[in-house]
């Protein structure tokens, strides 16, 4: 229960200190620290991440979602090919999907050319990969639950209440 509460707080703001969490939940500082360390050790907390709106700082970033159709391998199914894909540093996210294609690969590069090179020279060369379809992202509206484009502003005016 307390662990879930701590995880929810950290998921919404990873910078919340154990001291603040202790004040927020009423749990002791020792207990909070122990739970966080335990969650880090068993990879319940995988990483502390910042959602950056890169469009605010530069245009030198290209992202693409690549649909990959593969032939499953004997014994290992999709896992062996997925492993080969996710071991490329260019692949930031890899999901096994249901539907018309098998793997969804999120790739980030500096230029479209760089992404295209990765697809043609690395991804499509893997044994078992039947075909790829590359979708370049044009604009990020929302990521990890955060609205990036045109966020709403709270505009409080003077009122008596």
């Amino acid at each position, binding site marked *: 229960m307390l662990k879930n509460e701590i995880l929810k*707080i950290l998921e919404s*703001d990873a910078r*919340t200190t154990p001291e*603040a969490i202790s*004040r*927020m*939940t*009423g749990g002791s500082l020792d207990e909070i620290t122990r739970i966080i360390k335990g969650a880090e050790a068993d990879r319940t907390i995988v990483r502390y991440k910042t959602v950056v709106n890169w469009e605010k700082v530069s245009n030198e970033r290209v992202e693409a979602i690549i649909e990959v159709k593969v032939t499953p391998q004997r014994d290992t199914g999709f896992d062996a090919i997925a492993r080969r894909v996710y071991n490329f540093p260019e692949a930031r996210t890899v999901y096994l999907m249901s539907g018309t294609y098998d793997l969804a690969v999120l790739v980030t590069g500096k230029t479209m050319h760089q992404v295209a090179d990765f697809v043609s020279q690395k991804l499509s060369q893997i044994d078992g990969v039947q075909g790829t379809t590359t979708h370049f992202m044009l604009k990020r509206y929302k990521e990890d639950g955060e609205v990036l484009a045109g966020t*709403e502003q*709270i505009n*409080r005016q*003077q*009122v*008596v*209440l």
Partner: protein
Amino acid sequence: MPVETSLNRSMTSKAVKAIKPSGIRKFFDLLAGMDGAISLGVGEPDYITPWHIREAAIYALEHGRTMYTSNAGTPELRQEIARYLSRVHGLEYNPLGEIVVTVGVSEALDLAARAILDPGDEVIIPDPSYVSYPSCITLAGGIPVPVPTWEAESFELNPKDVAKAITPRTRAILLGYPANPTGAVMPYDKLAELAIVAERHNLIVLSDEIYNRLTYGVTVPSFASLPGMKERTVVLNGVSKAYSMTGWRIGYAAGPKEIIAGMTKIHQYTMLCASSMGQAAAIEALKNGEPDIQAMVEDYNHRRQVMVSGFNSLGLSCFDPRGAFYAFPSIKSTGLSSDEFAERLLKDEKVAVVPGTAFGQQGEGYLRCCYATSLPQIEESLERIKRFLSRL
């Protein structure tokens, strides 16, 4: 003896002159234009209305629902309010005649006061309590009778004190629990004692339950759900606080047919009806907004704990508020008056709080601090207050 004529008399009524400007307003005027200031003064959720509720209003607009509604509110909304009161409080009201939709709970309170009071009738109110209560009663021709509540008694209204304050002119008790500004709630046994007093003296109870769903670790019954009280209680509520819909101005009153009819009569000659799109949004809120309440309450609870423990660790003892979104720390140990403290804090450290005296004499020695603001702002304001205290 000089005769007062329309030419030489003052331009405003005696009733308007009798009411004081709000003590909250003064601090907002000071705050206006101040860079880098943190306000703990606004009694308003800092969430934007959940999207599915906004979408219901957009849908209503898209379908051209822009006309007046029935004076008492759309039948659909009144039905939904009846369902809500049944589901949450076990209260059964007939949407036709026992419920009226108003422009916020403020209008509901005004209507109720005007519907039940004759000039000179007295209304008992807890002290401290919401700034509008005394003025609302005065404007309706009544006389507010504050009954002190004490921190040592968890700011609960003591039924014995209420009984002592009753005179032949007493017409009603106005309750506002969970309370603004203290965050106090009333335990069931005390409400039951109060119900006995109301019955014995044949009093009407106006129960402002706008904060009823914002509670922490306790559930608060509606006063009307107490045995024998539905017949004499006007439940005043709305969607503003629980669903973060302050700007929509949708409130309601549920109560005895005769009083609701009286309120509806005044409402039809003044407001006519509440906004049609607002009513559409309120239906969606009452139908599907329960998860939103849960999420907000969880978040407010975190902030509440940070603020209350923060004040206590600064040596400003703070009553444990179990409802609404206000902390009410004592500043008696500083030797400053509430006004003085709030004014100096705003000027020196740019933190706006409301002096307890804005809510009645019993508020002297306290501040109202709203924790419906972001956690970093709460932590920063506590740091600034710490700095301020170190210089006293």
